[in-house]
């Protein structure tokens, strides 16, 4: 299995700062996780990756970025990645400070906000660090007038690593949207986001993932939330061959809160893994997770959701619910909720359900003239949209499934 490792051509940058990070990442990356790796037992990534997908040079750098491919229905700060390469001619305003990550790591400012991830625990973050070069550092100084949008277009095969760092300064309210689109080529996108929500700030993070049918997409969002800060994450996933969307939130200080909602719609032999780990590390913290999956054909959904409550995190509330619709006999879902509670004065719950569409609801719609295919579509969208009910910005809400 670890034959794969031999196919990697490691990056060796001339710049000493980058070189040091590459060495560090490489040292931390031991092997690709397999079925035997507990955190990946339902999602054995190594079985899907091919030598070709690990080739960092199989795609040429393409400066022609398809900006026009996306017509966002609202004004936004737009940043574009083509096949993993950041389009470096971008416009920033005075409310946000933007630097390419390879430049940012050479400055002092990013210091406190970079590489805060335990690389031993997150093998793909180690791998990502070994290829540190592309990505953005954004520091949001003031509440921006418009959402920040990252567009990722993947047209060619090969290995793409992206590392972003987003810092929402004290009291700032911001919306950040990631949109992934890809052609049906065998590529491997490995993306790591380090997110810092400072005191009383609120960052809403949206993700719309529609990778190509042959893509492997591994994403880690690692968020740190300070006193009174709010991190809200919404994800809709419907593409890719194998996808892992992992969210790790640390509610570091009092009154920090997190909302982690996701929905996925699986067709063909698509495999989508939603893994969360919410750590309540201080008193009066709160988290809410609502994940909904619709699995059709031979799709395989995975949900691993952990709520960890530290001994000092009294008066904490943590809630988690996963609901799945299985629409075919071969559809499959694995659900692993975990509660680790070390404090005694807490409110905590988790729940999981799975089932088919309700036949009486289908009949009701049909009896009003709506054909079965449309009726099922209406009900599937209604099921999925529950994950996005709370999205506050109506323009952004329209990007998600709705009734």
């Amino acid at each position, binding site marked *: 299995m670890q034959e794969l490792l031999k196919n990697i051509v490691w990056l060796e940058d001339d710049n000493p700062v980058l070189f040091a990070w590459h060495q560090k990442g490489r040292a931390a990356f031991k092997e690709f996780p397999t079925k035997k790796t507990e955190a990946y037992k339902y999602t054995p990534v190594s079985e899907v990756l091919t030598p070709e997908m690990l080739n960092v040079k199989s795609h040429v750098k393409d400066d022609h970025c398809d900006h026009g491919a996306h017509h966002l229905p609202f004004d936004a700060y737009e940043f574009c990645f083509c096949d993993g390469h950041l389009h470096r001619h971008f416009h920033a305003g005075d409310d946000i400070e933007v630097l390419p990550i390879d430049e940012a790591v050479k400055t002092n400012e990013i210091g406190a906000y970079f590489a805060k991830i335990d690389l031993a625990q997150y093998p793909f973050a180690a791998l990502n660090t070994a290829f540190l070069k592309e990505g953005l550092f954004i520091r949001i100084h003031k509440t921006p007038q418009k959402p920040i949008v990252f567009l990722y277009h993947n047209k060619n095969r090969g290995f793409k690593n992206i590392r972003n760092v987003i810092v929402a300064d004290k009291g700032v309210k911001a919306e950040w949207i990631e949109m992934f689109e890809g052609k049906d080529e065998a590529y491997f996108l490995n993306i790591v986001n380090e997110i810092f929500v400072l005191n009383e700030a609120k960052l809403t993070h949206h993700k719309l993932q529609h990778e190509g049918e042959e893509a492997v997409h591994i994403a880690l969002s690692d968020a740190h939330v300070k006193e009174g800060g709010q991190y809200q994450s919404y994800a809709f996933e419907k593409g890719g061959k194998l996808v892992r969307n992992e969210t790790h939130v640390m509610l570091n200080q009092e009154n920090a809160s997190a909302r982690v909602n996701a929905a996925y719609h699986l067709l063909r032999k698509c495999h989508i893994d939603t893994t969360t780990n919410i750590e309540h590390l201080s008193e009066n913290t709160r988290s809410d997770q609502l994940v909904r999956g619709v699995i059709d054909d031979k799709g395989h959904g995975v949900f691993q959701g952990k709520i960890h409550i530290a001994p000092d995190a009294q008066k904490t509330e943590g809630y988690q619910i996963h609901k799945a619709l299985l629409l075919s006999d071969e559809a499959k879902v694995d659900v692993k909720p975990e509660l680790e509670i070390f404090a005694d004065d807490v409110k905590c719950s988790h729940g999981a359900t799975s089932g088919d569409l*309700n*036949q*009486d*609801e289908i*009949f*009701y*719609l*049909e*009896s*009003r*003239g*709506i*054909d*079965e295919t*449309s009726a099922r579509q*209406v*009900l599937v*969208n*209604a*099921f999925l*949209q*529950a994950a996005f009910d709370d999205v506050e910005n109506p323009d952004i809400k329209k990007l998600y499934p709705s*009734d």
Partner: protein
Amino acid sequence: MTNKTPVLEIKNLCAGVASQEIIQNLSLTIYEGQVHAIMGPNGAGKSTLSHVLTGKPGYEISKGEVLFKGQDLAKLKIEDRANEGLFLIMQYPVEIAGVSFMTFLKHAINKKRAYQGLAPLSAPAFIKLVHEEADKLNISDDMLKRAVNVGFSGGEKKRMETLQMALLKPSLAILDEADSGLDIDALKVVSKGINDLNDGKRALLIITHHQDLLDYIEPDFVHVFANGHIIKTGDKTLAYELEAKGYTDFIKEASCKSC
């Protein structure tokens, strides 16, 4: 009667669930503009009739036929029956979380229009149309924005059923009240909706075991239903006779016409 077209013709119908015949040799013809009431005791098979007519999965016709505006109903899919103009006011309308009434109505109206070869209504025209009808039924904007029937009272559900009927303008509406307790206020609204709709081209079939309903919607014909078929037909005075005497005497006289 001669200048009228039958909307529904049921001929020697035997139907039921799985192998159990519940409707036995039922025959009934309904013409445009007529109001028919089928009355009978619980367990007589009244609800089965509405399920068979709308095509609810699991209900099968074993003998006889049903013609709806001249077409063999058994050959029409559920949605096509609706788009041809069959509408069931359900006894217990289903709650559908996550689908707002407006979205649901838009789908229903535009599917019917597509069936008729018409373009979908524009958003403003749709909203105007719904609000016009909703106002007549005292249905608020808030009710229209909520998910289909979710958390609605029995009366509110009936009003929403009536709204759908008013918008879809069926040729035949079936009011299934086979065993639900009657809410008089809801009944008034529904019956007003039905009476408003009846422009002489539409027909109505009421299925009930209460005669109270018939105080609000005046039937042209009352049929007593037992043992899976009609055992006696009369005008609305038959309903009062039923009220006075109960079903037992009628059933005793009835013939058994099993399939």
